[in-house]
């Protein structure tokens, strides 16, 4: 035991304790994620984004709110303004760096609220069946029937403008697809023998749903969340564009695009730079999500 390296200890066939087993399976998951080049690429971008958001005041060369009308709409590569300046002479690079905080904030909150709400509604509807299923699924249908942005607009109009309300509105419109996926998964799981077996041990429905059904629904939800990431960022941007999301002069990426839209023919970089930022982050989420799904998939997990 003592001459065993840490790696051997983690890769053992016969773990000696629960903690050992958990660490070993985490390590094996990490190894399989690491062998997926694209997923690691996505993870790298997201780690960079996190660092960027965390260190924004240090990294940004300028104050993101400082206006300089004499130097407005400077092109790329100008000295002191690597990515140029926008219509009010603010440094685009600094605004992008500070904007990563807002983007991360919105994306994280929506990505937590919407799938969780969907998971809850979908699994309860799928597992209990009967009238609960009918009621919950018809509510889901009603939410699905509205175009997403229009519904979000209505919510923001009712709740008031601002980032928190935008997050809430986007989450409220984003959960129904998750509920549908979770319900479909639950329907196939609930009649399986392993659920019957745990029912025969006297487990109550709450325990069955949270401990036995949720872990199996999560991998397909993660894929869906990562695919939705770009849509979430754009929905936030759309609300910002309509004056109902992030308020100017906040450097939210979507709001920056809509500001730059006015100059898109003559000064393309003003809208393109935040667009590229959104594209990169969405791509990173997609790549990582795909890799995570491979790791989390129960059918070939740990192999």
């Amino acid at each position, binding site marked *: 035991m003592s001459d065993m390296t840490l790696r051997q200890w983690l890769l053992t066939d016969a773990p000696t304790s*629960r903690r050992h087993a958990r660490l070993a399976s985490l390590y094996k998951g990490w190894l399989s994620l690491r062998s997926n080049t694209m997923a690691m690429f996505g993870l790298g971008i997201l780690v960079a984004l996190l660092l960027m958001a965390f260190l924004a005041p240090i990294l940004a060369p300028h104050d993101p709110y400082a206006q300089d009308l004499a130097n407005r709409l400077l092109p790329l590569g100008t000295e002191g303004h690597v990515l140029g300046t926008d219509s009010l002479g603010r440094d685009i690079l600094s605004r992008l760096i500070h904007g990563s905080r807002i983007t991360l904030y919105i994306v994280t909150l929506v990505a937590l609220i919407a799938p969780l709400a969907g998971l809850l509604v979908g699994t309860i509807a799928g597992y209990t069946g009967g009238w609960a299923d009918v009621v919950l699924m018809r509510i889901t249908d009603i939410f699905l029937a509205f175009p997403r942005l229009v519904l979000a607009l209505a919510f923001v109009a009712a709740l008031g403008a601002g980032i928190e309300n935008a997050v809430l509105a986007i989450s409220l419109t984003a959960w129904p697809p998750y509920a549908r996926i979770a319900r479909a998964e639950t329907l196939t799981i609930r009649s399986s023998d392993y659920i*019957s077996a*745990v029912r*025969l*041990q006297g487990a109550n429905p709450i325990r069955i749903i949270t401990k036995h059904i949720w872990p199996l629904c999560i991998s397909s939800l993660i894929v869906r969340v990562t695919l939705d990431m770009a849509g979430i960022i754009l929905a936030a941007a759309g609300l910002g564009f309509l004056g109902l999301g992030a308020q100017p002069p906040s450097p939210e990426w979507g709001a920056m695009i809509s500001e730059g839209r006015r100059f898109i023919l003559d000064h393309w970089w003003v809208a393109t730079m935040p667009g590229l930022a959104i594209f990169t982050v969405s791509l990173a989420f997609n790549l990582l999500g795909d890799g995570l799904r491979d790791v989390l998939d*129960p059918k070939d997990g*740990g192999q």
Partner: protein
Amino acid sequence: MSMIEIDGLNVWFGHGPDRVDAVKGAAFTVEPGESFGLVGESGSGKSTILRAITGLAPDWSGRISIGGRALTGHKRDRAFYRQVQMVFQDPYASLHPRHSVDQVLSETLQLHGFRDIDARVVRLLDDVGLGQKFRFRYPHQLSGGQRQRVAIARALAGEPEIVLLDEPTSALDVSVQAEILNLLTDLREEHKLTYLMVSHDLPVIGHMCDRLAVMKDGEIVEVMAVGALRAMQAQHPYSQSLLEASIAPGSRSA
């Protein structure tokens, strides 16, 4: 007092014109410590009787009593789950794909209210002939026979008196089948269990059971002792044809 008493049991699925009567007027009793077999072809309602006992088939009428206590509806109480456990047919479907052996067994023990979970998990794994190195494995890392051993350990975790066996070996290789059957025989002796076993395999029933009931189209056509089975002395023509089919040229013998 009989351990399992079933009288006039009807089980059906669906309602109205879609109603299918899976079991019609079944009646038999199983004594404490006995091993009772239910045989018949696919669709004859053998497994449905087990599902009605455990409450997994909600629509039934008639009388089912376990250890003298009559059951009603499809809700079962904690005392029932401690007394009666079931081993499912397909070990590939009866274990949660994301739960390790340790998780399966400790959750079961926790649900039955045991405190010394660690010691009991170790003992259960030894009981079913799986060593400690299997404790933290996941189902996809186990063979079919090993999975079935885990399923048996799970059924025994709550220290039941009655174990319902739903074709426990039909999804396994012939060589593994024998191991699992011997394990079940040993465990029955060791823990003084009562078995109610469903199978379409007469040699398996002949090996495992004391008495058996032959089922056809949802009805029990004959209840006989295993001696009569071995001596090929069935009363009912259907049971006789079943017996003859099982020793037909080319099939394996008991």
